[in-house]
């Protein structure tokens, strides 16, 4: 344990030590920093170097919960947060299931989240690789401009202590580079992006990021709006990742308990094509969102959610588990010190198929390769299941790729899409998102255009 982390744990312990009779207290303390470099036309546009810290305190007494936070660890502020959280208890409604997590004996699977190379990476090199990425992107295609080339890194230390015996801490750091592109053709401009992640900058693949950013922007030049019709779609791994991520709320045990899951009453029933198996596994170190503990301090664990198309499990925090008379699956999630834990999937993974994307495409007579979607937040309702997003991609005709198309939508319902999965690719991509990516083929999708 680093000295910074033990300092945070000591602070969390000290707050928990102030619990009065009948109170459960959880103190979540964190501290972190970031560096952000942005390059434009060969010059550093901005260089951000910043640190932040904060504490969130949750108190439960007689079935009522109060919470408060502050973005500082100064002693007077911490005392104020404790007092505010205590004051807020009286306004909560009595909830017989309210309570903190208790140690459940599930062992953590140790993982490495701290990279010493990254921690020691010199500032001038952060700037030089950002410039290098811009240069490589411009070299990739004459029609391409770079709107911004970025380097970002961050580190964080957290500690959580509770009166129920949870006492966990850890630290981690991460980094990535990204580039946003524009491609021009006469009056028309299209956009693209590319990125690379790694435990340290040594693992970046700048060439791949530059090439993808150039490809994404240029491949849509000259794209037209298609006519409306029913089609089979192939989702690019990046799009599949977004599609899988939205299933998290339907598999959420708290949504289930509150009657908001479209999978209610479907446990052990066929909800997807038999080819589809979905696992939440934050213990897999290949996952970008891998973690050893959840938002309540319980060990993160592997949970099979949908197996061969059959719904096997919902994910739970200790709260939703108590409500549903089951055990926490280690799926409490929290967005830092300013929030109390909710429930969600941590690192979603899909069992791959055995074909390449090209082989999947070769099997389709009339379809579209979907390379990008927009409006996932505005056109997808995870409660009703209605699914409608803007899209762009490439026409598939008799097993081969044709002309680019844009300004159309794809629509169905989540329920139907899962059952209409036709095939899956073997092209697993560990994207920097909550879900893994791979090529996914779905039939009977309404494409809406002119």
């Amino acid at each position, binding site marked *: 344990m680093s000295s910074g982390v033990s300092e945070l744990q000591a602070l969390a312990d000290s707050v928990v030590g102030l619990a009065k009779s009948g109170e459960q207290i959880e103190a979540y303390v964190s501290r972190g920093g970031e560096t952000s470099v942005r390059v434009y036309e060969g010059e550093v546009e901005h*260089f951000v170097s910043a640190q932040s810290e904060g504490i969130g305190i949750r108190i439960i007494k007689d079935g009522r919960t109060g919470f408060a936070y502050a973005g500082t660890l100064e002693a007077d502020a911490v005392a104020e947060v404790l007092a505010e*959280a205590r004051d807020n208890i009286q306004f*909560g409604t009595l*909830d017989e299931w309210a309570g903190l997590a208790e140690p459940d004996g599930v062992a953590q699977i140790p993982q490495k989240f701290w990279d010493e190379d990254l921690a020691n990476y010199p500032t001038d090199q952060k700037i030089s690789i950002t410039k290098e990425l811009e240069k490589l992107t411009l070299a990739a295609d004459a029609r391409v401009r770079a709107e911004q080339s970025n380097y970002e890194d961050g580190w964080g230390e957290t500690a959580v202590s509770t009166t129920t015996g949870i006492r966990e801490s850890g630290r981690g750091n991460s980094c990535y580079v990204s580039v946003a592109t*524009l491609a021009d053709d006469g009056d028309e401009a*299209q956009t693209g992006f590319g990125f690379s992640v790694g435990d340290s900058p040594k693992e970046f693949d700048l060439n791949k990021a530059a090439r993808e950013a150039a490809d994404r922007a240029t491949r849509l030049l000259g794209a037209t709006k298609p006519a409306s019709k029913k089609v089979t779609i192939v989702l690019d791994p990046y799009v599949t990742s977004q599609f899988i991520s939205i299933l998290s709320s339907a598999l959420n045990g708290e949504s289930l308990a509150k009657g908001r899951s479209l999978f209610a009453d479907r446990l052990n029933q066929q909800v997807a094509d038999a080819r589809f198996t979905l696992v939440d596994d934050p213990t897999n170190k290949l996952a970008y969102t891998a973690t050893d503990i959840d938002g309540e301090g319980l060990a993160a664990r592997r949970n099979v959610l949908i197996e061969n198309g059959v719904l096997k499990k919902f994910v739970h925090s200790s709260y939703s588990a108590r409500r549903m008379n089951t055990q926490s699956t280690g799926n409490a999630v929290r967005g830092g010190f300013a929030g109390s834990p909710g429930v969600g999937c941590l690192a979603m993974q899909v069992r791959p198929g055995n074909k390449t994307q090209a082989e999947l495409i070769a099997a389709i007579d009339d379809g579209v390769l979907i390379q990008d979607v927009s409006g996932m937040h505005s056109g997808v309702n995870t409660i009703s299941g209605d699914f409608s997003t803007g899209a762009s991609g490439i026409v598939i005709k008799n097993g081969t790729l044709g002309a680019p198309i844009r300004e159309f*939508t794809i629509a169905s*319902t989540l329920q139907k899409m899962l059952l209409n999965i036709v095939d899956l690719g073997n092209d697993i991509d560990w994207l920097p998102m909550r879900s893994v990516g791979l090529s996914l083929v779905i039939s009977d999708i309404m494409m*809406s255009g002119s």
Partner: protein
Amino acid sequence: MAETQKTEPLVAPDVLERVLAKGRSTGAEFAEVYIEDKRSTSAGLDDGKVEQVTSGRDRGAGIRVVAGETTGFAHTSDLSERGLLAAAEAAAMAAKQGGGGVNKVQLGSMLRHSVNNIKISPDGVEKSRKVELLKRADAAARAVNSAIVQVSAGYGDSLRRILIANSNGVLSADDQVRTLLRVSVVATGDGGMQTGYDSLGHTIGFEMFDENDVEELAIRAAKQAVTKLSARPAPSGSMPVVIKRGSGGVLFHEACGHGLEADLVGKSASVYRGKMGELVASPLVTLIDDGTMTAEWGAIGIDDEGHPSQRNTLIKDGVLTDYMWDYLRARKEGRAQSGNGRRQSYQHLPMVRMTNTFVLNGKEDPDDIVRDTKHGVYIAKLGGGQVDTASGDFVFGMTEAYLIENGEITEPLREGNLIGNGPEVLKDIDLLGNDFAMGNPGMCGKDGQGVPVGDGQPTLRVKSLTIGGTAA
């Protein structure tokens, strides 16, 4: 209460002068200190229970130093002179290695541009009264129909005090109070579950609830969910779309608002680049961005660079008249700022953002607009949206919509996105009503930062938009 809070600056002017001088110590031509002290209260009700009341405190400083084309930025939650000087040094180092020189900074007198007169500051209101609003919303929504199976309601208020000083002598402060209530409802029927949502948000204090009825809001959300139980799949393909007043401002936010932000235009990442003085929309359209619009959700006294908010005409009778500007982009063009430099918090750099963006009234009777439409879609409530400013392609969701058949609003439709191209859609607006209204409070996301924005428009018709439904 609000008056007493205004008397003492968050940091003394002489400290700010020393911090700014430190910011320029490596030879940079511009330094800025942004101080923020924000207190917030939120309460959530779900499943019939007030789950939690949360109190939050965010306090800190962001220091920006500009040398040539490079901006250095550092932030700290330590508001002592020592903490501020350390952050200023970090920002100065970030902006420029080497250089050097001694720079004295002298601030002007403090300008206060309070966005409005808060009648009832939320921090003086008992939390029990805030929680009571949620219980009233819950009861009202559930009473609408037995099909209502779930209600979630949220209350939030914030008092955000900001102080901005820069090496050009600017010294400005603003106290921004915002109050919000939202209600989400789930109804269930034979065809599964449907949802309803409504919200109310203003840049005022607790008096918002004297002027607006919580029950009415909850009933609207509940009715929306119940109506959708009998909704049929939305059509697919292109057709005329009528958008109800006060529900479709997000269309302009996405179709052209973002594309008129000078940072995107400056990098030629906007489809509206080089179009100044040209006809970019139907001559019916006059588009305004107005941060001074008292009490609206996107209202501000000063922007987050200390510049007073103002009313800017972006499109006049269809002709592009101006973009929106922040300090850096305006400096580069040698022109004035427009009060659009905004940031999420002291931890963020400012950039060009909208405030309240809206289209002025036309002449048509809104009923005539529907009557004039033989076959199309009527949208009573829009959801969020997203735009690719370079191509101009944008989507926005419809959360409450109906078919128009033979000039009459008929059956409800299920949810979906609509897609269009900004410049084409603006030119396709062929009817504009005389019934202007502002819409729901929105949070606009750009480059990872969220800021509160408002939008509004009269009832209008777009000749052709693509509806992303499933029906043939």
